[in-house]
């Protein structure tokens, strides 16, 4: 499995794929959006630092949510290259002729693509948090609100990746997989804005729950009133759908998939 993963990463990180992902990630995240005002009087240093991290990652997460289309485009591209393109060029056939478990092959491909996009966008987010104010860099790097950005990125990426894998595995065609994945994601996102499974809905909710949630100040310490049951309710539907899609494509790939 290690060898397959290594080969997969080598394949995904070759020129110019990584460069394209980095450029898109920086273009998407690297701009100063609206930054909230921090009422600082009477705060403790710790609470002041928390608020700085909150407004910085609030802005970066908002930038990510506002341009989801770029994530859809990159996910479609990478998963098509990894699954459908290798079928078209008979590379999968060659791999299957070796003593390689299909389960390992599928998981390596999925994890490789997911890790490349996730880590690139995460680095772009942290890098820009440092860029917007160098003197607060040490605070922004260790801010707990980075976890909210990671959660948002994970959910969006897992959703897009599951859809992309399902389309690629079932279509077995490069062009169909790329165009199909992109349009399925884009149309679903545009039409189903009020459905709990739609990225527009659940990402917007996460942003509101974590970044605009109530906060009270008591003796200089800020207490964030984040309702975790509400957050779980928001996260659960997309996570469930993504897992189901992942499971379907995994079972199909390992049990019924025919390489012609």
């Amino acid at each position, binding site marked *: 499995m290690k060898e397959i993963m290594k080969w997969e990463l080598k394949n995904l990180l070759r*020129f110019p794929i*990584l*460069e394209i992902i*980095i*450029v898109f990630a*920086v*273009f998407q995240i*690297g*701009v*100063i*959006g*609206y*930054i909230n*005002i*921090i*009422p*600082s*009087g*009477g*705060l*403790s*240093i710790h609470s*002041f630092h928390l*608020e*700085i991290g909150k*407004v910085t990652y609030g802005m970066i997460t908002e930038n990510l949510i506002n341009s989801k289309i770029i994530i859809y485009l990159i996910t479609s591209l990478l998963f098509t290259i990894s699954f459908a393109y290798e079928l078209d060029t008979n590379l999968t056939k060659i791999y299957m002729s070796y003593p390689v478990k299909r389960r390992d092959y599928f998981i390596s491909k999925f994890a490789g693509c997911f890790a490349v996009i996730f880590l690139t966008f995460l680095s772009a987010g942290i*890098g820009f948090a440092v*860029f*917007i*104010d*160098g*003197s*607060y860099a040490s605070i922004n790097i260790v801010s707990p609100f980075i976890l909210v950005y990671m959660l948002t990125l994970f959910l969006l990426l897992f959703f897009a990746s599951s859809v992309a894998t399902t389309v690629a595995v079932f279509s077995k065609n490069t062009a169909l997989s790329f165009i199909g994945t992109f349009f399925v994601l884009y149309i679903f996102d545009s039409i189903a804005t009020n459905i709990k499974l739609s990225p527009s809905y659940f990402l917007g909710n996460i942003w509101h729950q974590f970044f605009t949630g109530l906060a009270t100040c008591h003796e200089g310490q800020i207490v964030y009133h984040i309702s975790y049951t509400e957050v779980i309710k928001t996260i659960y539907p997309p996570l469930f759908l993504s897992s189901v899609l992942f499971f379907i494509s995994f079972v199909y790939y390992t049990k019924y998939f025919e390489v012609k």
Partner: protein
Amino acid sequence: MKRIGFIIFLIGLTIFVNFNVKYMPTKSSNLNFEIKVNSVHADTHHLLYGEVKFYYSACNEFHGELFVLDREQAEHFLKTNEISYTKKFELKDEGMVKFFNDNTGFYTFVIKNTSEKDSHFEYSLTTDNENIKDCIRMSMCIAVVGLIIVGMVLFKERDRIILKQRKIL
């Protein structure tokens, strides 16, 4: 190494394009609050490079002071309640104060009421849309660093080839 240089160049170039193409909000919303005699009110704002305009309005016969604090000064203020500042302005009734901001970043504004009665205070901030020269300069620096790395690697490669050719000869 050549690839890393190229990636750094691309990052710098993309940020440069972003700052030139995308919209950046330059006006804060209005802030209202009551300020008691001899008390202070503090808010932290993200200010862009360039001219910052501070529009304020208070009750008649209001006298006050506005202090602009950077990170160290803000932390010192939160710890000790003593104000050390980078900029100080006198405030009276209503008006506008403008100053030049050298670096884009977070700054804490402390407003002190020095008049003899409590007052209602309202303010908003604006910065010029074109004024992000420091961010643009920094993105250009990142791009140039990338180019230098690529250039150095290319020169080294060329030297190595020349040395090899000399050895063959």
